[in-house]
């Protein structure tokens, strides 16, 4: 079985801080990590590999530095790494990104594609289902458990208040939740292999390696654009009340909740 896992290198947003003076993001010194949902997807693929045997290919689109995320994936146990990197891909929104990735995947053999549900820097949750749409295969989002049964996959699909246990014929695409599992650690030896073993070297594909219409990718091909970005305005100073009675205190609170639509 061939499993392709799409991963994204993201800044660890829990480490992102705002410059209190300028209100801009301080990106310096913020570590880059494999997006957590994607890492859970990779772990799910590696477990299927352990259990049933499979070749696991990791694919990422990003700048050349994103190779570090692919190396980490190989050090966890992935068999092959492909980096989609080209200036022509830059500035792509989710539609254009999914178009590039789907075009690359058409060159690969796959029975199962796993992506993370969403990336912590963008939180869109769109690229996975959009890849599936471009490939014309079913997608199952929000997977919390994955089992293989012959040429079918059985997925526990999470909703807010329920699960659907869904059976789907391969090939299909699954988006994984970080709740799916606890990803394994790399091993030191595999880290060295990832960097030193020629056979595991990342394949870098540019726009000429991917059969894609260049008018629908990159900044120009993206349907959506960022109009502006800003940091939340600092809140106005709050009010402190010293009500005489508990009744009065409770009323102040409840009024505020109504004003803010919480009630």
């Amino acid at each position, binding site marked *: 079985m061939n499993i392709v896992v799409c991963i994204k290198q993201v800044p660890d947003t829990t480490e992102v801080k705002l410059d209190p003076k300028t209100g801009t993001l301080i990106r310096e010194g913020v570590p880059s990590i494999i997006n957590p949902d994607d890492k859970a997807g990779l772990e799910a693929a590696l477990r299927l590999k352990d259990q049933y045997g499979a070749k696991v290919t990791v694919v990422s689109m990003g700048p050349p530095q994103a190779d*570090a995320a692919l*190396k*980490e994936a190989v*050090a966890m146990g992935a068999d092959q790494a492909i980096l989609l990197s080209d200036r022509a891909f830059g500035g792509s929104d989710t539609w254009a990104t999914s178009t590039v990735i789907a075009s690359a995947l058409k060159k690969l053999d796959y029975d199962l594609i796993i992506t993370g549900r969403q990336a912590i820097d963008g939180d869109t949750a769109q690229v996975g289902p959009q890849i599936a749409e471009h490939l014309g295969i079913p997608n199952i989002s929000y997977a919390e458990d994955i089992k293989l049964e012959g040429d079918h996959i059985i997925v526990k699909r999470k909703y807010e208040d329920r699960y659907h246990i869904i059976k789907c014929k391969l090939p299909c695409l699954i988006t994984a939740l970080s709740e799916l599992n606890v990803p394994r*650690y*790399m*091993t*030191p*030896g595999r*880290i*060295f*292999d*990832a*960097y*030193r073993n020629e056979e595991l070297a990342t394949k870098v594909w540019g726009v000429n390696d991917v059969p894609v219409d260049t008018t629908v990718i990159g900044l120009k091909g993206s349907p959506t654009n960022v109009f502006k970005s800003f940091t939340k305005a600092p809140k106005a100073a709050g009010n402190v009340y010293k009500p005489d009675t508990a009744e009065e205190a409770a009323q102040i609170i409840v009024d505020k909740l109504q004003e803010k639509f919480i009630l």
Partner: protein
Amino acid sequence: MNFTLSKEHQLAQNLFREFADKEVAPLAHEIDETERFPVETVEKMKKLGFLGIPYKKEYGGQGCDDLTYVLMMEQLGRVCGSTAIIASVHTSLCCGALNNAGTEEQKQKYLRPLCDGTWLGAFGLTEPSAGTDAAGQCTRAVLDGDEYVLNGSKIFITNSGWADVYVIFAMTDKSQGSRGISAFIVPANTPGFSVGKPELKMGIRASTACELIFENVRIPKENLLGKEGKGFGIAMKALDGGRIGIAAQALGLAQGALDNVIAYVKERKQFGKPLSKLQNTQFTLADMETRVQAARLLVYSAAVAYDQGQPISVKAAQAKLFASETASYVTNRAVQLMGGYGYMREYPVERMMRDAKITEIYEGTSEVMRMVISGQLLK
């Protein structure tokens, strides 16, 4: 000259840091308090290949290098001195001796399961009357047919009781002094071999340091490691490697104390401002940090020299001497900066201070390190 870690070493360092923070640090306080051997952590390290880092894949190892091993020791030491020493004695001393002196057969039979995570190893050299003066060995090994018969005892043996296999030194010819010492591979389940009661230690309290007792322990002569009479050299060579590991453990302890105290002085307010605003704090931190960085350079350069096959006795001694004394200095200053809270067992720096002290003592005291270094200068 390039002082940057390679990308693979950086990624390995990330791995060890994450493992230390997630798996080791949460247990550090409890296992110190209760003097409990962290068997669950050891099992995790076995599974991840952490106990065979510098050894070849054909012997079950990870095929990395000594620098990678040192990076692990530093990260383990940063959060838990006990866990670090367990890994160090196994890797540097037990596996190191087997890797340096073992036959191909011995390596396949013993080194492989030690490196691939099946077994834990230990190393028995010290005796009640043979500490720094290792040549004063009283444990004896006598060849009887196809077997050696061992009698005697060892003390302060790390991983005792938990190890599956021990590298043991014993006199095969007392008249030859240090040239009469031989090394043996002793499986833990050999009849006549037993482990005594645990010693109560000041620090590294979650590692074991028991007595080993040999009462007519018969081992096949294939378990002689190296040639008869070559044991002292085998021990010294393993200890040279081990000292780099201890130096890295000490470096980690110093870094851990520094990290803790920096977080503390930013938060703790006295006289209306954080301690970090006081010049005494600032200057002390600067001295701590500078020594830690100097120790790191010595430790890493010793590991790189080891990987390059250079003679390392002096470099290892310098790294261990400086890093261990730095660990004691930095942990001591950390407690001082934190005042009464630093002295409380609720905060990790007092544990780190206790753990740091042993790094000046075991695998060669600071005095022995000075002998090694000056001996080179004056020869």
